[in-house]
């Protein structure tokens, strides 16, 4: 079995458009949350959202490559170019070596809506234009990036709701571990537009604390009232240790384990047993004990039941050692399809810079979250091993354990 390492990362998020900006935001506990007034016009319960600027790729890509990219594809392109640069991989290398892509994405609303609006109005499908189909499919990110980057390895999208990109990293880890691929570009992209969030808003899942947007996302806090939707993209380069050595690449971390499970329960209400099984499987795969984990980046989205059940699951497995826990969603909001990959990057930035980012807005614990060792403010700490949880609708769970390379 191959050892699997991470040799590059890149990020485009509501708390920074590159690794350096994100590092500062994490350290200083900056929020990326704001208000989208359009949502009021649409009849949303909540106008709260992560705020991000669309990148302008006109000088980076030719027209044919740009017109297939949906919003989250643009974010993913920027994050991936940063990750490849970070990994020391250029186009020449990509053309001469077999590199794959596994990316998490689970929606692409705007191109679908705009195409159907046009069909209904014009009754002529040709008028939709040639880019819409490549923007509207769930695999939009992998189908576009694989062409732009001339990739010749494994190539597909993983849709596992809010655990999509965590599973993408997990699957890439398994493929490299087994020797089937040497390098896989992994990550997740998430659209942030109002149209894509309407049906989720309709479930009353979002915080309505609109008077104070940066205080709205309150994972684990007693007074949490729901999540804040967000987005962007995050890319990590997974590679076999042998390949990294061959290229003389800088090794940023090692992927030690991947755990997964399905709740077999309710479509939207998480339980305790599913995450517990994912955590146990991940620890077992990594050959580590609960007390070996220095930091847990929790899934915790700030929904009342979700955070309670995750707190119970973490307490059940880690109650004896009580490692530091924080949910970076307190700053970023819920990055959904992107969250698994972005939170691995946030945690790697913390590991590299020896601090635990704060779970901002954690002011009062409740009966269950009070059992965890939650970092309410930035804590200077050496991290050797961290664990990252991602859970999603349908009861899909993913857990990753990543450590400093030794």
């Amino acid at each position: 079995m191959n050892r699997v390492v991470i040799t590059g990362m890149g990020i485009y998020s509501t708390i920074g458009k590159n690794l350096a900006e994100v590092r500062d935001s994490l350290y200083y506990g900056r929020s990326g949350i704001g208000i989208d007034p359009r949502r009021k016009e649409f009849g949303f319960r909540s106008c709260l959202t992560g705020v991000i600027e669309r990148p302008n790729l006109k000088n980076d890509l030719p027209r044919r490559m740009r017109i297939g990219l949906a919003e989250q594809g643009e974010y993913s392109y920027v994050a991936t170019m940063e990750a490849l640069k970070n990994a020391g991989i250029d186009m020449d290398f990509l053309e001469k070596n077999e590199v794959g892509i596994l990316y998490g994405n689970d929606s692409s609303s705007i191109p679908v809506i705009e195409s159907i609006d046009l069909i209904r109005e014009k009754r002529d499908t040709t008028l939709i234009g040639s880019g819409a189909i490549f923007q509207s499919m769930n695999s939009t990110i992998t189908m576009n990036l694989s062409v732009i980057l001339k990739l010749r390895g494994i190539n597909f999208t993983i849709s596992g709701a809010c655990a999509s990109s965590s599973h993408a990293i997990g699957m890439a880890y398994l493929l490299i571990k087994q020797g089937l691929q040497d390098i896989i570009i992994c990550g997740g992209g998430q659209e942030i537009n109002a149209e894509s969030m309407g049906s989720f808003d309709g479930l009353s899942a979002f915080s309505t604390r609109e008077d104070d947007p940066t205080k709205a996302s309150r994972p684990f806090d007693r007074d949490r009232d729901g999540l804040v939707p967000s987005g962007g993209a995050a890319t990590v380069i997974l590679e076999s240790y042998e390949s990294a050595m061959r290229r003389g690449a800088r090794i940023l971390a090692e992927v030690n384990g991947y755990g997964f499970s399905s709740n077999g329960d309710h479509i939207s209400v998480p339980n305790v047993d599913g995450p517990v099984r994912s955590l146990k499987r991940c620890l077992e795969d990594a050959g580590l004990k609960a007390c070996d984990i220095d930091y847990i980046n929790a899934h915790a989205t700030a929904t009342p039941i979700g955070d309670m059940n995750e707190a119970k699951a973490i307490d059940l497995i880690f109650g004896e050692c009580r490692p530091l826990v924080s949910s970076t969603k307190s700053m970023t909001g819920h990055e959904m399809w992107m969250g698994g990959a972005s939170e691995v990057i946030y945690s790697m930035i913390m590991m590299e810079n020896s601090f635990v980012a704060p779970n901002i807005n954690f002011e009062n614990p409740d009966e269950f979250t009070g059992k965890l060792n939650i970092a309410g403010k930035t804590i200077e700490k050496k991290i050797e091993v961290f664990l990252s949880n991602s859970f999603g609708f349908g009861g899909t769970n993913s857990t990753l354990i990543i450590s400093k390379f030794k």
Partner: protein
Amino acid sequence: MKPEIVAKVNEFLAEEFEIEAALLTPEARLVEDLGIESLDFVDIVVIIERDFGFKVKREDMEGVHTLEDLYKYIETRAV
């Protein structure tokens, strides 16, 4: 050939398809010289309807090889 048609076509090829203006000569072949590919013809159909106000069938484009063919085709169809 109506100069306003030539100007309009050249404008959309330069702006929307990002083709260098110097390459836009009547004898330029759309595929070989200007780099237009099969998917781009779908977008040309959309733009012709938008800018010249008539519907193009995808099949009509089969006889269009050079820029001059395109000007002529539009001239015969545009009212």
